[in-house]
């Protein structure tokens, strides 16, 4: 394990390109990212501060900060950054590293649970089913969530097992939910 910066460039570099992650060092802390952040308006997300913390190698602090998960990846800061810092790629890399080390936020893990159970990050619920029926459609479209497509869902689950995603989010196959959800989902 190198510094957080080095890990980011190595790990995130494979996905986003190393040169994207290397822009982190160009940050001048002008604050234009936080200043226009739609999430930061209502949440504790301070994009500028995250960039500085990453440069300061504050690995544990970042990985344990709930606001790391508050970015909606809208790319507003990414487009406006005067120094061309690839902020969104950097945040996504930080999240990937945090997740790898078991720090994924509960809501993000819950999305994994939905995919595991239905094949959808946003499953079709009773309200949508009613709406579909009202306009003359079958209550459920022919996706992995449809009971007749159980095989497809099993394939999704197989993929999750093969990639160890189930372990990453601490998925309990017996309860088909996060382990210890009764204790707040913390590991």
């Amino acid at each position, binding site marked *: 394990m190198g510094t957080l910066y080095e890990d980011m460039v190595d790990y995130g570099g494979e996905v986003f390109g190393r040169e994207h992650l290397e822009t982190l060092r160009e940050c001048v802390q*002008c*604050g234009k990212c936080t*200043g226009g*952040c739609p999430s930061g*308006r209502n949440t504790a997300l301070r994009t500028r501060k995250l960039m500085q913390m990453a440069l300061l190698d504050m690995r544990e602090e970042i990985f344990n900060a709930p606001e790391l998960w508050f970015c909606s990846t809208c790319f*507003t800061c990414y*487009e*406006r950054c*005067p120094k061309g810092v690839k902020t969104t790629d950097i945040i996504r890399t930080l999240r990937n590293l945090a997740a790898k080390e078991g720090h994924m936020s509960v809501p993000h893990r819950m999305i994994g649970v939905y995919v595991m159970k239905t094949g959808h990050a946003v499953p079709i619920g009773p309200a949508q089913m009613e709406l579909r029926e009202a306009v003359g459609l079958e209550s459920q479209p022919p996706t992995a969530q449809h009971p007749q497509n159980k095989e497809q869902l099993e394939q999704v689950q197989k993929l999750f097992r093969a990639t160890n995603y189930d372990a990453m989010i601490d998925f309990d196959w017996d309860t088909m939910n996060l382990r210890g959800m009764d204790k707040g989902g913390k590991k």
Partner: protein
Amino acid sequence: MGDLEEEYDYTKIPPTGSAEGIAAGAPEDSPRIGVYVCHCGINIKMTVDVEDVMRYAASLPNVVVARHYIFMCSDPGQDLIRKDLAAGRINRVVVASCSPRMHEPTFRKTCSDSGLNPFYYEMANIREHCSWPHGDFHKEATEKAKELVRSAVARSALLEPIEEKLVDVKPEALVIGGGVTGMYAALDIANGGYKVHLVESKPSIGGHVAQLSRTFPTLERTASLLTPRMIEVGAHPNIDLMTYSEVEEIGGYIGNFDVKVKRKPRYIDTEKCKDCTPCIEACPVKDIPDEFNEGLSTRSAIYIPFPFAVPPAYTIDAEHCLLLKEGKCGDATLETIKEGKAVPPCMAACPGVIDFEQKEEIEEFTAGTIIVATGYDLVNPEVSAEYKYGVYPNVITSMEFERLLSPGGPTGGKIELNGKEPKDIMFISCVGSRNKQVGNEYCSRVCCMYLAKQAYLAKEQLPDANVTVCFQDVRAFGKGFEEFYGDVKTKGVFYMRGLPGEIYKKPGSDRVVVRGENTLIGEPYEQEADLVVLGMGLAPNKDVESIISMLKLSTSVDGFLMEAHPKLRPVDTATDGIFIAGCCVSPKDITDSIAQGKATASGSLRYLVQGRAVIEPAISQIDEEICIGCGRCAEVCPYGALELDEVRHVMTVNEAICKGCGGCNSVCPSGAATMKHYRDRQVYAQIDALTEVTDVGRLAEPESASAAEVAAEASAGAADTGSETGEVEGAETEAVPSAG
């Protein structure tokens, strides 16, 4: 690297020493080369084994003597060369030291002072090309230094003498651009007693500075500083002022630039114009955005840009004048005026001064030197779309705010928007500069201080207003700047760190909301404002592209004009006799612009006073015996230096225009076009020497190749190319104990 350092302990090498070369007994009329290896203090010596390089040099063909010395450029260093020349030992000089850009002129002069043609001098760059980039590789750097020396020696043997040529310099200068930079350049030359042609495209000189309210950090009224200088320029007997004029064509070369200037018609007899106002009142076109007031007010088609304009004369704007644009103003047409019948209202208001028959005029003259001072444009404020310039009237540029602050501006110097005084004013720095997204990575240098000044003046005029400057850094680097920045803050201007993210309209109000993060407390804010001033950056003037191509100037990646050297030759260009100054080179304030303007005057006067200039000697030469006059060379020549001699049907080189770029040399199908000092055989010898297979350049090979194999191959290679290698007989080292 520990072992190598021990092996190449640079402290053990004495400051000088010499070795007799293998050609020591060669006849006097053959090339007899002296090679001088420089330590550059420790810059070269700490990486390259200079003694080893010297011994190697002594083993090269045609080398009579090789020496090393701690500083070849020093006087004792040059003395080594002088003594060898005086003793008649050598007739060629090779110095292995730094870049030719650094010391080629030094050593050429050493040669010429001792009676050797300076073009018998050759340089091997073993610092920039060797010791500096390969600092950790002593052995390899030493071997590379040997190769570079071998290459220089091979070329040196084939060099030819060249005579330097002089051209006469017409003792007149052309200054392009009548802003503060061009004005000061023109004044210095004119006051030095030489004639200046000053060309300005606008109706008046004064440039952007004329638009400014006050200066920073001294808060003097710009108009009162500038007006006396403008009047001086306008009245100076040595200044031929051409306003409302554009340079059409420039040809020629240093000392003899042929210039054509287009004088646009003003349709006014400037001699008779009394600078009164009845014509303005009479003109029916009144809604033209006033450029001088940044569009904050309107003007007529007949106008004077500002009250203290020089020359103090009106101009009819042909793009908007009804008579010129549509052929008819009221009942008047050009015909009715001729017939003495109906005249337009302006002529009626001011008879005998307006003349619609004026035509564009071309003026031609010759100038010895040229100064380019074409200034800047503000960056388009719409590039940072999140600040909503052009969407909300509350968002204005810093130049518009200058006009609001100016007594001669649209509000008479009152800060107001639609007749209302703002209560909350916010300034935003670095708009359009230091920004990769808008393509301007550079800092515009003046924004920090003009924003400080504007915020100060805002607080002074409206003490109850909240004045906030949003910044990412404050660069208060100039004389008195930091102190002024302190004063501005003490005055009550709040500096909020962080660039705002965006601006939006407050619903149900005519105010806007600036959203950002105060990065020092790490908290976002949303602050209401009636007026937001964008601290606009400076960009190169877009209207001067034709001048750039006419003069074949280079631009840097940022689009500004490029200096001959960014540190050492800040106002020179690659072309002798052409200088650049002011904001066309890079953004700068009034002080620095004036300094550069005066620097170019000094550079020009050097030629004007002497009346002659040395021209580049390493230029193209046509072998008329071979040339078939096909003209391919003329097609590629970027300087227009080649012409066909119709009678003899061969190409000829204008020696004053040719820059020695070598384009003709490479396209000439018959080999008639060659470059003096860069003959094919000289260059090929250099390449051959570099690519020669010897033991030099073959270092510890991977284990697969044994040392014996390498040695065998090397000696075979040496035999093939016929190069002479072997032990240096009688190599001696004169160890001189270093003083102190």
